[in-house]
């Protein structure tokens, strides 16, 4: 999933005819002054970070004049809000708010349909409203083949008190446009909170657009950096590179995320960083559960499953090994129908290319555990190519458990560390 920044989300809304405040992206005090001169005072300064707690954490502030603007922008730029670095701000006109409304469209797994959501009381307290007064949240599932029509949305909006017919019609139209955003851009969630009733009409003061990660490749007009979801932080360059592997080839997947990109967590907690790849996220979790108590920490998560072609394994193995500071590599497959001989070929080609002098035998502890379809072929290939004979390699088959693989890695690493001394 790709969560867009507020200004990116608003740019999309504007393309679909949903009004937003006038505003400019700035990255310095000088740019902020120019932006405020355009939108006028009072203005809003909003940190462009991916966090739902931004408003309550000082990431959205009003300024009444240039002195305040300079102070706020200087304060926010380069700082961290919700533990996220702030390097971009949105300077917007501040509008008089008469009422705040919540609109959203997301997927309803139980109905297997999109669902439009409306609440007559929006703003920063929407989560509390949902808990305290769930009946205030109105939902309508949408038949995806039929689509959403203004009268569907109007039925939803009619539930709200204190709105004129004209206002209800306006909200219903915006909700339908929001549904169009959801469908057009393969979203998992689109949200306007709040949609403000102002003297100038209905205006989306804040917006959230989350795009389905598996559909990012076809959202080319959004010009996004495509990568696996990595929480609220921006994708790393290595994650962006990894995402290109699946973008070009639909056959199987390699989901790669850096858990500890700069190894700071591993170092801070005195854990041993290692590169990691599993067939299946479940096997990945259970293997991590075995390895972490033994003092290891995976610097990346990788699930290369869905029967990926050998070339995908080749590429992602190169990426995993390119992470500096790793003191080992663990590959574990779950028992599945994945054609593991192809998986093995990808790993073998990568290792032979990375370690030409040793014909593919790595210089760090490496455990390769193949269990599932064609696992015996995979083991034969590793033996044929001389990888299994590597001093720091342990190859395991279908009799091994995740615990066995972790124990083998631990033992191998102990031996390796004892021989190599300080591993820095």
């Amino acid at each position, binding site marked *: 999933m790709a969560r867009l920044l507020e200004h990116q989300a608003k740019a999309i809304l504007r393309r679909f005819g949903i009004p937003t405040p006038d505003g400019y992206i700035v990255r310095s005090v000088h740019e902020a002054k120019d932006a405020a001169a355009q939108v006028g005072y009072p203005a809003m300064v909003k940190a462009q970070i991916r966090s739902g707690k931004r408003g309550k954490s000082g990431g959205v502030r009003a300024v009444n004049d240039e002195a305040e603007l300079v102070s706020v922008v200087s304060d926010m730029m380069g700082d961290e809000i919700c533990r996220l670095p702030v390097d971009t701000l949105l300077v917007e006109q501040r509008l008089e708010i008469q009422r705040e409304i919540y609109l959203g469209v997301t997927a309803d797994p139980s109905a297997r349909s999109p669902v439009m959501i409306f609440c007559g009381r929006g703003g920063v307290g929407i989560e509390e409203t949902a808990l305290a007064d769930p009946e205030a949240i109105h939902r309508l599932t949408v038949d995806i083949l039929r689509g959403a029509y203004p009268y569907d949305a109007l039925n939803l909006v009619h539930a709200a008190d204190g709105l004129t017919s004209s206002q209800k019609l306006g909200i219903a139209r915006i909700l339908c446009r929001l549904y169009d955003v959801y469908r057009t851009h393969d979203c998992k969630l689109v949200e306007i909170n709040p949609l403000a009733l102002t003297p100038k009409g209905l205006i989306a003061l804040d917006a959230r657009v989350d795009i389905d990660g598996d559909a990012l490749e076809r959202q080319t007009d959004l010009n996004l950096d495509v990568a696996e979801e990595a929480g609220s932080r921006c994708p790393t360059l290595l994650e*962006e590179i990894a995402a290109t592997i699946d973008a*070009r*080839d639909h*056959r199987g997947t390699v989901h790669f995320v850096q858990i500890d990109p700069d190894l700071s967590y591993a170092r801070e907690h005195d854990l041993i960083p290692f590169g990691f790849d599993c067939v299946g996220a479940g096997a990945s979790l259970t293997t991590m559960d075995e390895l972490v108590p033994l003092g290891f920490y995976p610097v990346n998560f990788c699930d290369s499953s869905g029967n990926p072609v050998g*070339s995908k394994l080749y590429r992602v193995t*190169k990426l995993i090994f*390119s992470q500096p500071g790793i003191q080992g590599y663990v590959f574990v497959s779950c028992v599945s129908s994945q054609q593991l001989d*192809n998986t093995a070929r990808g790993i073998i080609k990568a290792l032979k290319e990375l370690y030409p002098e040793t014909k593919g035998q790595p210089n760090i502890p490496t455990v390769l555990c193949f269990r599932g379809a064609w696992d015996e072929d995979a083991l034969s*290939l590793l033996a044929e190519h001389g990888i299994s004979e590597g001093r720091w390699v342990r190859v395991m088959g279908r009799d091994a458990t995740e615990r066995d693989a972790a124990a083998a890695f631990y033992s191998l690493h102990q031996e390796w560390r004892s021989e190599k001394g300080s591993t820095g």
Partner: protein
Amino acid sequence: MTGQMMTFEVCSGGRITIDLGHCAACESKPCVAVCAVQGGPLVLDEIRGVPTLRWSLDEVKRGGCVECLGCQLECELHGRQAVTTTLPLERFGEYMDTLTEPAVYGREW
């Protein structure tokens, strides 16, 4: 195909090149054998005694080649080392340039 070299592009981006000059003297043709198992595009040209493609270059690129890498790896071990597989990783060089310490495979322990 140019002269003794056969080159075809693959779906994921990249190409496989076979130096057919080596292939005539190869008795086992392991690339053809492994490709047959995978349902891939390589077959034996009975007249010339070298591998050839059973589909068009477009069909091969569209996914006819399953990119198992078997042709290269089998040829390395049992053939004449005639197959080269080039599978680029977009921006990987840029990433490597950002590293302040070498990757593990370039490191002396």
